[in-house]
């Protein structure tokens, strides 16, 4: 029984990052309208991708990010909108983190936040350019900019909440392992 629970615990632990990104994708779609000005949802899935690629990259393999990104685009887009932009965003963010891990692991939160600021700026710019190129016209960047700024200031809250869960990782508490 205990073995089973441990097994279940490990499974849940392994599935958590992917499941959370999926849940945040659905939450982005939910018609939540808190402040009037916020017509676009914050980049919650991107935050989760950044966070988990930083701390548990093995739990978010590239293929899973690809699938989640495609799902996100399929759900979000209307006709004619490109499918695959979010997948590309997620994959490039993951790769950028894996390639620069030495600057981002075991540093203070300020640096992690700075990293998020840079990478999400790149990701938003990427999707803006892609949209403009594929539709071949100028697109008002203001909503995207707004989305970026709001997400930037939400990230510390998100990171703090996520950080609360980390001390309970089996990896950080060896006695919890079977």
């Amino acid at each position, binding site marked *: 029984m205990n073995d089973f629970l441990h097994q279940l615990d490990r499974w849940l632990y392994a599935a958590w990052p992917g499941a959370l990104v999926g849940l945040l994708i659905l939450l982005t779609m939910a018609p939540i309208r808190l402040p009037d000005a916020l017509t676009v*949802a914050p980049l919650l899935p991107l935050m989760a991708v950044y966070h988990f690629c930083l701390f548990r990259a093995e739990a978010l393999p590239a293929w899973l990010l690809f699938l989640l990104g495609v799902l996100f685009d399929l759900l979000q887009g209307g006709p004619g909108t490109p499918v695959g932009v979010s997948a590309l965003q997620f994959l490039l963010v993951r790769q950028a983190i894996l390639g620069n891990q030495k600057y981002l692991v075991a540093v203070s939160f300020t640096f992690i936040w700075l990293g998020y600021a840079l990478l999400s700026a790149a990701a938003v710019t990427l999707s803006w350019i892609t949209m403009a190129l594929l539709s071949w016209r100028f697109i008002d960047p203001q909503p995207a900019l707004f989305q970026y700024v709001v997400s930037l200031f939400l990230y510390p809250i998100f990171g703090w909440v996520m950080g609360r869960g980390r001390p309970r990782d089996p990896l950080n508490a060896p006695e919890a392992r079977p």
Partner: protein
Amino acid sequence: MAFREAVAQAAASVRHLVQRFSLALLVSAAVGTMLIGKADTVLLERVRAAALDLATPLLEAISRPVATVNQLITDIEDLADLRAENARLREENARLLAWQSVARRLEVENAELRGLLNFKEGPQAGFITARVVGDSGSAFVRSMLLNVGRRAGVAGGQAVVTGEGLIGRITEVGEGWSRVLLLSDLSFRLPVLVERTRERAILTGDNSAMPKLSMAQSVVGIQVGDRIITSGHGGSFPVGIPVGVVTSTTDGSIRVKPLGDTTRLEFVRVIDYGITGLVTGPAPPQEMYGPPLPPAGLRPAGAGK
């Protein structure tokens, strides 16, 4: 032993290669889907419909508590300015009562004149009320998901309105869901009329809160404050649904503020006009001979609000 080590080393390098290659593969797959979506929209729409069939029940489940929270916030906000709101409504009520008597008189007069001229009315519009279960939440796509679909009689091209005015058009329909493309979306185009001058124009969404009015004719004579209504050209929309108000006419670019507010929407109405299929449908109705069309507010589509 050395052989085994060599094999292990080779295996490791192969694995490394595959890992590296898999990223390139996935990145090109992502770019590929974008291009495929540009070239072959039918395939992608089918996949999208399947994904939405799965996701809509989940979204609907999420939307209920979300709506409750939104309602609570609105209630609290409303409490704060109850007095001012009350005074405003009383004033508006007085004004509307005056309008009502005018409208009654005109309605009777209109009916009589139509009887005299044997005027043929367009099809009667029916309504389908829908719950908003999802929102694109994206910075580049402006759309909403509704919990009604083919089963309820929704079809592509139908107009979607709130009490205030038009908010968009149905673009995709599933069994139990449909997607509304909002006025502000990049790919939104709508034939409209300037209510005062009866001038035809095209409303073009460009991802900003204020869609642009591209005039088919001259821009002269359009003033700030002019109301924009649907023209009914193209066949799928009834004539005279209020769309917006002109807010600026600077250097040839006319901006329109939509009347329908899309933030915090819980319910919308889909107008079933009997004619659907904006592009592929039957030819648009013939121009009617005789007197100019009656004022928009008195048509049944507008009166149902």
